[in-house]
Protein backbone atom coordinates (compact mmCIF):
# COMPACT_ATOMS: atom_id res chain seq x y z
CA UNK A 1 0.00 0.00 0.00
CA UNK A 2 2.78 2.42 0.90
CA UNK A 3 5.33 1.37 -1.75
CA UNK A 4 8.29 2.89 0.16
CA UNK A 5 10.07 0.43 2.51
CA UNK A 6 10.85 3.03 5.21
CA UNK A 7 7.22 4.16 5.35
CA UNK A 8 6.09 0.54 5.46
CA UNK A 9 8.56 -0.19 8.27
CA UNK A 10 7.31 2.82 10.22
CA UNK A 11 3.67 1.84 9.89
CA UNK A 12 4.40 -1.83 10.67
CA UNK A 13 6.04 -0.83 13.95
CA UNK A 14 3.17 1.55 14.70
CA UNK A 15 0.69 -1.27 14.13
CA UNK A 16 2.44 -3.58 16.61
CA UNK A 17 2.72 -0.79 19.17
CA UNK A 18 -1.02 -0.17 18.88
CA UNK A 19 -1.67 -3.90 19.27
CA UNK A 20 0.49 -3.88 22.40
CA UNK A 21 -1.34 -0.86 23.85
CA UNK A 22 -4.89 -1.92 23.02
CA UNK A 23 -4.81 -5.71 23.32
CA UNK A 24 -6.76 -5.28 26.57
CA UNK A 25 -9.59 -3.73 24.58
CA UNK A 26 -9.84 -6.68 22.20
CA UNK A 27 -13.38 -7.87 22.76
CA UNK A 28 -13.03 -11.27 21.06
CA UNK A 29 -16.18 -10.57 19.06
CA UNK A 30 -13.95 -11.04 16.00
CA UNK A 31 -10.88 -13.16 15.28
CA UNK A 32 -7.57 -11.76 16.46
CA UNK A 33 -6.32 -11.91 12.86
CA UNK A 34 -9.25 -9.74 11.74
CA UNK A 35 -8.64 -7.23 14.56
CA UNK A 36 -4.95 -6.92 13.75
CA UNK A 37 -5.59 -6.64 10.01
CA UNK A 38 -8.12 -3.87 10.70
CA UNK A 39 -5.55 -1.92 12.73
CA UNK A 40 -3.03 -2.35 9.90
CA UNK A 41 -5.42 -1.14 7.19
CA UNK A 42 -6.52 1.84 9.26
CA UNK A 43 -2.91 2.80 9.95
CA UNK A 44 -2.10 2.61 6.22
CA UNK A 45 -5.03 4.77 5.21
CA UNK A 46 -4.33 7.28 8.00
CA UNK A 47 -0.68 7.44 7.00
CA UNK A 48 -1.55 8.21 3.37
CA UNK A 49 -4.04 10.86 4.47
CA UNK A 50 -1.48 12.55 6.75
CA UNK A 51 1.15 12.45 4.03
CA UNK A 52 -1.14 14.29 1.64
CA UNK A 53 -2.07 16.92 4.23
CA UNK A 54 1.48 17.41 5.50
CA UNK A 55 2.90 18.24 2.11
CA UNK A 56 -0.23 19.97 0.79
CA UNK A 57 -0.11 17.51 -2.11
CA UNK A 58 -3.13 17.07 -4.33
CA UNK A 59 -3.85 13.40 -5.00
CA UNK A 60 -2.05 13.41 -8.36
CA UNK A 61 1.31 14.46 -6.89
CA UNK A 62 1.40 11.75 -4.24
CA UNK A 63 0.59 9.21 -6.94
CA UNK A 64 3.49 10.56 -9.01
CA UNK A 65 5.83 10.41 -6.01
CA UNK A 66 4.87 6.80 -5.26
CA UNK A 67 5.19 5.83 -8.95
CA UNK A 68 8.71 7.26 -8.93
CA UNK A 69 9.51 5.15 -5.85
CA UNK A 70 8.30 2.08 -7.73
CA UNK A 71 10.88 2.78 -10.41
CA UNK A 72 13.66 3.45 -7.90
CA UNK A 73 12.94 0.82 -5.25
CA UNK A 74 15.62 -1.90 -4.87
CA UNK A 75 13.07 -4.01 -3.00
CA UNK A 76 10.98 -4.45 -6.12
CA UNK A 77 11.21 -7.62 -8.21
CA UNK A 78 9.14 -8.50 -11.25
CA UNK A 79 9.02 -7.59 -14.90
CA UNK A 80 7.67 -4.56 -16.73
CA UNK A 81 4.03 -5.67 -16.76
CA UNK A 82 4.08 -6.16 -12.98
CA UNK A 83 5.46 -2.67 -12.56
CA UNK A 84 2.78 -1.29 -14.87
CA UNK A 85 0.11 -3.05 -12.82
CA UNK A 86 1.44 -1.44 -9.64
CA UNK A 87 1.40 2.00 -11.30
CA UNK A 88 -2.17 1.37 -12.45
CA UNK A 89 -3.12 0.58 -8.84
CA UNK A 90 -1.73 3.95 -7.73
CA UNK A 91 -4.39 5.63 -9.86
CA UNK A 92 -7.15 4.12 -7.69
CA UNK A 93 -8.49 5.85 -4.55
CA UNK A 94 -6.71 4.52 -1.44
CA UNK A 95 -9.59 2.47 -0.11
CA UNK A 96 -10.36 0.96 -3.50
CA UNK A 97 -6.67 0.06 -3.89
CA UNK A 98 -6.76 -1.50 -0.43
CA UNK A 99 -9.75 -3.68 -1.31
CA UNK A 100 -8.12 -4.69 -4.61
CA UNK A 101 -4.88 -5.71 -2.86
CA UNK A 102 -6.76 -7.77 -0.27
CA UNK A 103 -8.85 -9.55 -2.92
CA UNK A 104 -6.32 -9.96 -5.72
CA UNK A 105 -2.96 -10.38 -3.96
CA UNK A 106 -4.06 -11.78 -0.55
CA UNK A 107 -6.87 -13.97 -1.97
CA UNK A 108 -9.21 -12.93 0.81
CA UNK A 109 -12.94 -13.59 0.54
CA UNK A 110 -15.39 -10.71 0.32
CA UNK A 111 -16.76 -11.76 3.71
CA UNK A 112 -13.31 -11.49 5.32
CA UNK A 113 -12.69 -8.10 3.67
CA UNK A 114 -16.15 -6.94 4.80
CA UNK A 115 -15.34 -7.82 8.41
CA UNK A 116 -12.04 -5.95 8.31
CA UNK A 117 -13.18 -2.83 6.48
CA UNK A 118 -16.71 -2.75 7.95
CA UNK A 119 -18.10 -2.45 4.42
CA UNK A 120 -20.89 -4.52 2.89
CA UNK A 121 -20.06 -7.43 0.58
CA UNK A 122 -22.10 -5.80 -2.18
CA UNK A 123 -20.15 -2.55 -1.96
CA UNK A 124 -16.89 -4.48 -2.00
CA UNK A 125 -17.85 -6.48 -5.08
CA UNK A 126 -18.81 -3.29 -6.85
CA UNK A 127 -15.57 -1.56 -5.80
CA UNK A 128 -13.41 -4.50 -6.96
CA UNK A 129 -15.22 -4.73 -10.31
CA UNK A 130 -14.68 -1.00 -10.96
CA UNK A 131 -11.02 -1.26 -9.91
CA UNK A 132 -10.41 -4.15 -12.34
CA UNK A 133 -12.03 -2.15 -15.16
CA UNK A 134 -9.83 0.92 -14.44
CA UNK A 135 -6.68 -1.21 -14.32
CA UNK A 136 -7.46 -2.97 -17.62
CA UNK A 137 -8.10 0.40 -19.30
CA UNK A 138 -4.76 1.69 -18.02
CA UNK A 139 -2.87 -1.42 -19.14
CA UNK A 140 -4.39 -1.18 -22.62
CA UNK A 141 -3.22 2.47 -23.09
Amino acid sequence: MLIDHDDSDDVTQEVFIKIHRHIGNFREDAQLYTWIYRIATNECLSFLQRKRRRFFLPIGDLEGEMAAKLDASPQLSGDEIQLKLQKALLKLPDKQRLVFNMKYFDDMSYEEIAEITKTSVGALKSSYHIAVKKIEDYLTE
Partner: protein
Amino acid sequence: MKKLEDIPKKEVFTVPDGYFEKLPAAIQSRVHHDAPPAVWAGRLRYAFPMVVLLGLSVFWFTREAATPHPESVLATIPTSDLVGYLATSDLSVDELLDNVALDEADAAELEEAVYALDLSDEQLQELMNDVELKGL
Protein backbone atom coordinates in the same frame (compact mmCIF):
# COMPACT_ATOMS: atom_id res chain seq x y z
CA MET B 1 -7.69 -5.21 -24.50
CA LYS B 2 -5.37 -6.45 -21.79
CA LYS B 3 -7.16 -8.49 -19.16
CA LEU B 4 -6.09 -8.67 -15.55
CA GLU B 5 -6.40 -12.46 -15.60
CA ASP B 6 -3.78 -12.55 -18.38
CA ILE B 7 -1.17 -11.02 -16.10
CA PRO B 8 0.64 -13.60 -13.93
CA LYS B 9 -0.06 -12.85 -10.32
CA LYS B 10 3.20 -12.09 -8.57
CA GLU B 11 4.12 -10.32 -5.32
CA VAL B 12 6.65 -7.74 -6.45
CA PHE B 13 7.52 -6.30 -3.05
CA THR B 14 10.31 -8.06 -1.15
CA VAL B 15 11.50 -7.65 2.42
CA PRO B 16 15.16 -6.75 3.15
CA ASP B 17 17.26 -9.59 4.60
CA GLY B 18 16.96 -9.94 8.37
CA TYR B 19 14.11 -7.43 8.60
CA PHE B 20 11.82 -9.57 10.72
CA GLU B 21 14.72 -10.57 13.01
CA LYS B 22 15.36 -6.91 13.83
CA LEU B 23 11.71 -5.87 14.00
CA PRO B 24 10.95 -7.01 17.60
CA ALA B 25 13.90 -5.03 19.02
CA ALA B 26 12.88 -1.90 17.09
CA ILE B 27 9.32 -2.16 18.40
CA GLN B 28 10.53 -2.81 21.99
CA SER B 29 12.68 0.32 21.99
CA ARG B 30 9.75 2.43 20.79
CA VAL B 31 7.40 0.93 23.37
CA HIS B 32 9.80 1.81 26.22
CA HIS B 33 10.41 5.26 24.78
CA ASP B 34 6.68 5.95 24.51
CA ALA B 35 5.82 4.48 27.91
CA PRO B 36 3.16 6.61 29.63
CA PRO B 37 4.12 8.44 32.84
CA ALA B 38 3.55 6.64 36.12
CA VAL B 39 0.09 7.05 37.58
CA TRP B 40 1.44 8.69 40.71
CA ALA B 41 3.04 11.46 38.64
CA GLY B 42 -0.42 12.49 37.49
CA ARG B 43 -1.68 12.55 41.06
CA LEU B 44 1.36 14.54 42.18
CA ARG B 45 0.32 17.22 39.76
CA TYR B 46 -2.78 17.81 41.87
CA ALA B 47 -1.25 17.06 45.28
CA PHE B 48 1.57 19.61 44.96
CA PRO B 49 -0.63 22.76 44.72
CA MET B 50 -2.69 21.47 47.66
CA VAL B 51 0.45 21.04 49.78
CA VAL B 52 1.56 24.58 48.86
CA LEU B 53 -1.85 25.98 49.82
CA LEU B 54 -1.80 24.07 53.09
CA GLY B 55 1.66 25.37 53.92
CA LEU B 56 0.65 28.95 53.17
CA SER B 57 -2.47 28.61 55.33
CA VAL B 58 -0.46 27.26 58.26
CA PHE B 59 2.06 30.07 57.86
CA TRP B 60 -0.70 32.70 57.70
CA PHE B 61 -2.57 31.55 60.78
CA THR B 62 0.55 30.98 62.91
CA ARG B 63 1.78 34.43 61.84
CA GLU B 64 -1.43 35.99 63.21
CA ALA B 65 -1.12 33.99 66.42
CA ALA B 66 2.45 35.23 66.86
CA THR B 67 1.27 38.84 66.68
CA PRO B 68 0.51 39.83 70.31
CA HIS B 69 -2.95 41.07 71.20
CA PRO B 70 -2.97 44.71 72.44
CA GLU B 71 -4.83 43.82 75.61
CA SER B 72 -2.28 41.18 76.51
CA VAL B 73 0.51 43.75 76.00
CA LEU B 74 -1.30 46.27 78.24
CA ALA B 75 -1.80 43.64 80.91
CA THR B 76 1.98 43.46 81.36
CA ILE B 77 2.24 47.22 82.12
CA PRO B 78 1.77 48.26 85.77
CA THR B 79 -1.52 50.11 86.48
CA SER B 80 0.32 53.07 88.05
CA ASP B 81 2.23 53.60 84.78
CA LEU B 82 -1.01 53.49 82.80
CA VAL B 83 -2.69 55.98 85.15
CA GLY B 84 0.31 58.26 84.93
CA TYR B 85 0.27 58.14 81.14
CA LEU B 86 -3.46 58.86 80.96
CA ALA B 87 -3.11 61.79 83.36
CA THR B 88 -0.49 63.45 81.14
CA SER B 89 -2.08 62.59 77.76
CA ASP B 90 -4.50 64.77 75.81
CA LEU B 91 -7.10 62.03 75.74
CA SER B 92 -10.46 63.04 77.17
CA VAL B 93 -12.61 60.62 79.11
CA ASP B 94 -15.13 60.53 76.27
CA GLU B 95 -12.42 59.71 73.69
CA LEU B 96 -11.07 57.01 75.95
CA LEU B 97 -14.46 55.46 76.46
CA ASP B 98 -15.20 55.62 72.69
CA ASN B 99 -12.08 53.54 71.97
CA VAL B 100 -12.51 51.00 74.72
CA ALA B 101 -14.61 47.99 73.82
CA LEU B 102 -16.39 47.41 77.10
CA ASP B 103 -18.79 44.57 77.36
CA GLU B 104 -21.85 44.86 79.60
CA ALA B 105 -20.16 43.20 82.56
CA ASP B 106 -17.16 45.56 82.34
CA ALA B 107 -19.44 48.61 82.04
CA ALA B 108 -21.53 47.55 85.02
CA GLU B 109 -18.40 46.94 87.11
CA LEU B 110 -17.00 50.35 86.16
CA GLU B 111 -20.27 52.08 86.99
CA GLU B 112 -20.43 50.24 90.30
CA ALA B 113 -16.89 51.34 91.17
CA VAL B 114 -17.47 54.98 90.21
CA TYR B 115 -21.05 55.62 91.12
CA ALA B 116 -22.04 53.05 93.72
CA LEU B 117 -22.14 54.51 97.18
CA ASP B 118 -22.10 51.97 99.93
CA LEU B 119 -22.86 54.44 102.71
CA SER B 120 -25.10 54.21 105.72
CA ASP B 121 -27.63 56.96 106.43
CA GLU B 122 -25.42 58.47 109.19
CA GLN B 123 -22.38 58.56 106.86
CA LEU B 124 -24.45 60.14 104.16
CA GLN B 125 -25.79 62.76 106.56
CA GLU B 126 -22.24 63.61 107.72
CA LEU B 127 -21.13 64.01 104.10
CA MET B 128 -24.00 66.28 103.28
CA ASN B 129 -23.28 68.38 106.31
CA ASP B 130 -19.63 68.73 105.25
CA VAL B 131 -20.33 69.66 101.67
CA GLU B 132 -20.91 73.26 100.96
CA LEU B 133 -23.80 73.37 98.63
CA LYS B 134 -23.13 76.37 96.48
CA GLY B 135 -25.70 77.99 94.35
CA LEU B 136 -28.58 76.07 95.97
